[in-house]
């Protein structure tokens, strides 16, 4: 009785960490610039393919491909932000939605063209592959690794936002953009940097996700809904809210598949809709 429950919690936590990494940047994007970037999942997919590609074709060790995935996604995010997205800040939400859906569609096509539509396998090093005995249950080592890494990154992120000047500027800009601009802070440059960091997190999340949830060109479409739910339910621009929503979603999803597999994603969507009707600004939104 307890065993499965603990397992579900741990698996859900690991899944939640992945969702948080992939959604964190999106939360900042939407909170800071009001830019609805539905293509955020494409950056995660890019990270995934960088991991797979470097390991398969260049025989890089798995752990070394992770920073490469983050850097690759950051560069891609930075380029797209500077060339395309920045023109749409403050514009119509519908334009942003359609533009980024267009980008999703193109990235899906490009990924299919380059890597084919079959799921890509990834082999993780042996020390991450096994299972370890923790207390009363056996847990996948990789999941523990994810939770540990995710915990460290989250700690770093929260400290970065709470303690550094950069973080203070971001918080100020989310809170009151006009005021921040009039304080002489270049919000545009601030945002480019934040966008690149968010892209790096997404790339890393995508790279880490391959082993757990698989990777094929439909990845950005599959996770679009989940990322949007995490960000909106958590409250736009709130890191803590996004983290909590991601973990809650992760645990609910794993628990739902275990206990009520016949309900599918129904419960998840229903809870999301009800939550947003109750608090349209999200749980931690203002």
């Amino acid at each position, binding site marked *: 009785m307890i065993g499965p429950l603990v397992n579900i919690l741990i698996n859900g936590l690991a899944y939640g960490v992945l969702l948080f990494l992939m959604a964190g940047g999106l939360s900042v994007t939407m909170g800071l610039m009001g830019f609805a970037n539905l293509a955020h999942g494409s950056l995660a997919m890019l990270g995934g393919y960088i991991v797979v590609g470097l390991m398969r074709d260049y025989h890089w060790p798995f752990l070394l491909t992770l920073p490469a995935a983050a850097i690759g996604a950051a560069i891609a995010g930075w380029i797209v932000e500077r060339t395309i997205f920045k023109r749409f800040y403050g514009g119509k939400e519908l334009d942003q939605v359609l533009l980024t859906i267009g980008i999703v569609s193109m990235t*899906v096509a490009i990924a299919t063209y380059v890597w084919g539509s079959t799921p890509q396998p990834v082999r993780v090093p042996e020390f991450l592959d096994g299972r370890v005995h923790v207390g009363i249950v056996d847990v996948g080592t990789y999941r523990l690794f994810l939770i540990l890494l995710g915990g460290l990154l989250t700690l770093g992120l929260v400290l970065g936002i709470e303690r550094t000047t950069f973080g203070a500027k971001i918080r100020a800009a989310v809170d009151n953009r006009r005021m921040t601009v009039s304080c002489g802070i270049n919000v545009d440059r601030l945002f480019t940097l934040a966008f690149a960091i968010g892209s790096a997190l997404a790339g890393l999340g995508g790279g880490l996700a391959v082993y757990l949830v698989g990777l094929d060109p439909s990845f950005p479409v599959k996770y679009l809904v989940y990322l949007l739910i995490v960000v909106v339910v958590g409250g736009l621009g709130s890191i803590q809210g996004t983290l909590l929503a991601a973990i809650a979603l992760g645990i609910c999803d794993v628990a739902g598949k275990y206990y009520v597999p016949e309900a599918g994603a129904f419960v998840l969507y*229903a809870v999301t809709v009800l939550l947003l009707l109750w608090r349209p*600004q999200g749980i931690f939104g203002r």
Partner: protein
Amino acid sequence: MVALAPRIPAPSVVARHLFLRRSRWRWEEIAFWLIAAASFFLFPGHHVLITQALISGLFVVSLDLLLGYSGIASMGHAAFFGIGAYTAGILAQQGWGDPLLGLIGGAIVAGAFGALCSLLVARLHGAALLTVTLGIGLLCYELANKWSSLTGGDDGLQGMIVQPVLGLFAFDIDGNVGFIYAFVVIFIFYLLARRLVNSPFGLALTGIRENIRRVPALGISVRFQLMMAFTISAAVAGVAGALLAETTQYVALEVLSFDRSISVLIMLVLGGIGNLVGGMVGAMVFIVARDQLAAVNPVYWNFWLGLILCVVVMSGAGGIVGFLRRLGDRIGNGR
């Protein structure tokens, strides 16, 4: 008193004329409907495809009423289309196969669900509105998927028996009757939609799109107008879904899919938002292009679709119809 009796001043004639001009048939509209009617004779081998394009067009028009005129984005509009399709389908499966009954049933059930949703979403906007409409669409899909005793689930709804239209014209395998039936129904709904956007009610919707804060200060209830708009839009989407079910005599789970909710947005933007005919044109171009390109390679189709979407949005040209209008204006000025 006689001397003070109101006489109609000349500016009033001008003012009335401005409103008449607003509601006048434009050449793109006339051209589209003439071509659509002529296609019955020009492309006899493609009746089924063109019928589907027209039905998608009506679906896009229903979204345009909501998005183009009221400024409310729905990311789950397929919910209403699908509910209309399943309603007509289940009616026909249970022996109520009269096509017009199916249309009415589809409109009522989809409209009622739309009214319910409008109560929920009327106070939402921004990211929450996008997510909730998306969530409602996904909920309906999941529900139909799991409730297979009613819907047939993944296999689709089988065993529809659709009776002849008006008891006279039986649907044929070449889609001749289906084409004419759909064409007439869609044209009637197009006229009704035109009527709606050129009514004071439609003007109030435009007001909501243009400045939602001013509207209450005129004495207009935003909530009421949006609920009406949502309900009407859902009912029209339901009619489109019912038409698809009747002309194909089958309902696939795909009618409720996220893909369909997104495609309808794309068709609207491709054709041109906020002028009704843009939706019809966008659907026609989209469906025909998909038929041609996706047959070659679905991967290319996705790529070009995405690229075209980005170009349309970035150019800000107002889609195909917006482009045609400007072209027409330029030719007109050049004379």
